[in-house]
């Protein structure tokens, strides 16, 4: 019997199996941000264990509330900053250099095929786009990760999703993952890895693959995974060119992180997605998904484009294409948060920031802020947001607010009309 990529990564990283189905894995990366890490740091200090297993494998960023909005968030930033300095964690991204964790860490080349990665953040599953096993964990697991460089997991079964056909213009990775979550339901992949495979994924950019993997957790998944390929190597090349003689060599090495043809799966689901329409969530669960057409005309108050799901350059380009030469409706306000400083700079150079501003968008610094109602775009009671983020839970973007999750193109279209709209309307 062959092995899945997750099994291969587990086999290569297992340091102990102290109990049945308890796999203690060696970690290649521990990612940290200022919301879940400070409590881990203070807890370690209180235990007299203020140590780190390897400062070169720990990467940290202030991203959720930045710049700090009040004394409490300033304190969280300070705890993380002081800790990074104290332990000589060189890859610490402070205000001015910081971006949304799941955008900036891949962009810096910190994620590689075959890696094990944990972070105190549920959307850590994003990094599986590179063929890594990346899982969100809580503060206690984070403490142990920081201290010892290990984490314990039960063995994850795998759901393989095979995507065939060709996405229509105006339909993106976001529409696809919303459709898949609807099919799987919010706990359909609990304790499982979701492999995204097939010609549709093969043709996708790394940005789109990250959008797919990012929302694996919304179906309960431990990690989303795409197989590393030429596109992965091209994305990483600047960071790995000293390790490999050629891209072909890199590709050959990374090909060990692909599931075997006879691997055992919990489920294999195949979808031809050629007829897929732009999708949107309704209600408070991410599996409550309809086509945009079914709820078009629904009034919105705020548009938000950003987050670890859809704040990358590809997303901004797609939204800008819809917005170019248009103005947002008088009945809405619109916010865009480029996910990293590099994305912001690219958007400036490409004239995308100008398009957003001319349309009437507020352009914020890179931050998670509005996605979880912490800053930079919190909703008022009863307000509705067309959002490119990943969660529509009750109160997520502000108490009593309603969030409709959708693609950047659909969010841009909603900004122009003030209602949920198919972006096709704005195709030249």
């Amino acid at each position: 019997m062959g092995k899945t990529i997750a099994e291969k990564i587990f086999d290569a990283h297992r340091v102990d199996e102290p109990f049945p189905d308890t796999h203690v894995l060696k970690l290649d990366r521990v990612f940290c941000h200022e919301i879940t890490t400070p409590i881990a740091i203070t807890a370690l200090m209180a235990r007299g264990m203020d140590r780190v297993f390897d400062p070169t494998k720990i990467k940290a960023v202030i991203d959720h509330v930045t710049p700090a909005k009040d004394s409490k968030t300033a304190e969280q930033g300070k705890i993380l900053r002081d800790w990074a300095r104290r332990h000589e964690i060189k890859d610490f991204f402070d205000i001015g250099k910081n971006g949304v964790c799941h955008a900036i860490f891949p962009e810096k080349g910190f994620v590689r095929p075959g890696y094990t990665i944990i972070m105190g953040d549920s959307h850590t599953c994003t990094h599986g786009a590179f063929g890594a096993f990346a899982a969100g964990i809580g503060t206690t697991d984070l403490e142990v990760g920081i201290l010892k460089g290990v984490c314990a997991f039960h063995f994850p079964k795998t759901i393989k999703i095979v995507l065939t056909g060709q996405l229509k213009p105006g339909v993106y990775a976001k529409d696809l993952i919303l459709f898949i979550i609807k099919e799987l339901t919010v706990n359909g992949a609990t304790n499982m890895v979701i492999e995204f495979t097939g010609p549709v994924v093969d043709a996708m950019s790394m940005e789109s693959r990250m959008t797919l993997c990012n929302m694996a957790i919304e179906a309960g998944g431990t990690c989303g995974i795409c197989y590393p390929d030429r596109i992965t190597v091209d994305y990483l090349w600047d960071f790995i060119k000293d390790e490999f003689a050629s891209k072909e060599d890199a590709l050959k090495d990374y090909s060990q992180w692909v599931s075997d043809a006879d691997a055992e799966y919990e489920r294999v689901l195949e979808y031809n997605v050629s007829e897929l329409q732009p999708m949107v969530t309704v209600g408070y669960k991410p599996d409550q998904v309809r086509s945009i057409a079914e709820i078009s005309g629904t009034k919105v108050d705020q548009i938000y484009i950003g987050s670890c799901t859809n704040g990358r350059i590809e997303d901004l380009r797609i939204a800008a294409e819809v917005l170019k030469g248009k103005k947002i409706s008088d009945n809405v306000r619109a916010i865009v948060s480029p996910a990293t400083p590099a994305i912001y700079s690219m958007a400036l150079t490409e004239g995308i920031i100008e398009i957003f501003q001319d349309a009437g968008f507020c352009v914020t610094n890179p931050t998670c802020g509005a996605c979880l109602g912490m800053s930079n775009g919190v909703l008022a009671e009863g307000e509705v947001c067309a959002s490119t983020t990943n969660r529509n839970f009750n109160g997520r973007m502000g108490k009593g607010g309603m969030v409709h999750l959708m693609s950047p193109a659909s969010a841009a279209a909603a900004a122009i009309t003030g209602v949920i709209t198919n972006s096709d309307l704005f195709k030249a």
Partner: protein
Amino acid sequence: MKNFKGNVLFLDRSDINTDEIIPAKYLTEITKAALQPNLLEDLVLPGFSRADTKDKAVIVTRENFGCGSSREHAPWALEVNGINVVIAESFARIFRQNMYNCGMFAIELPKQTIDGLFQNYAGKAVTMEIDVDGNQIKIQADGKSETLAFKVGEFDQTLVKEGGWVGYADKNY
């Protein structure tokens, strides 16, 4: 070990998420105690009020409890309200592990058993106690008692007994 005995709060809904258990705006707190007043503040459940959480030690609920965020603030918000046991049909992975990592119980029971708990005990004065060594839930209501067996992995049981994962890992790795 923590306290595993007391009154029961019944939450008759699936997919109760971490944002409902403790909204993100409270994640700027850096002490567990500060979370105490805000447990289940955004819970969408007709008839539920925050006052229902008072003097409870156990929650009985449906499927996929704790889905969403990785925030360990969710178990902490339960803990600082005296609730160290959640019994459900199923849990989200991260929440479940966070509970055991904190030395708390996330106990899975089959749907029909959970149905029975709701039918027989919801709305009544009922107490439950977890027998940690015997893997049993002792239920008392109306002067009658009942015992239910549950399964827990060796790792999870060790975490409950040793009071969490940090000490164990530091000793062994």
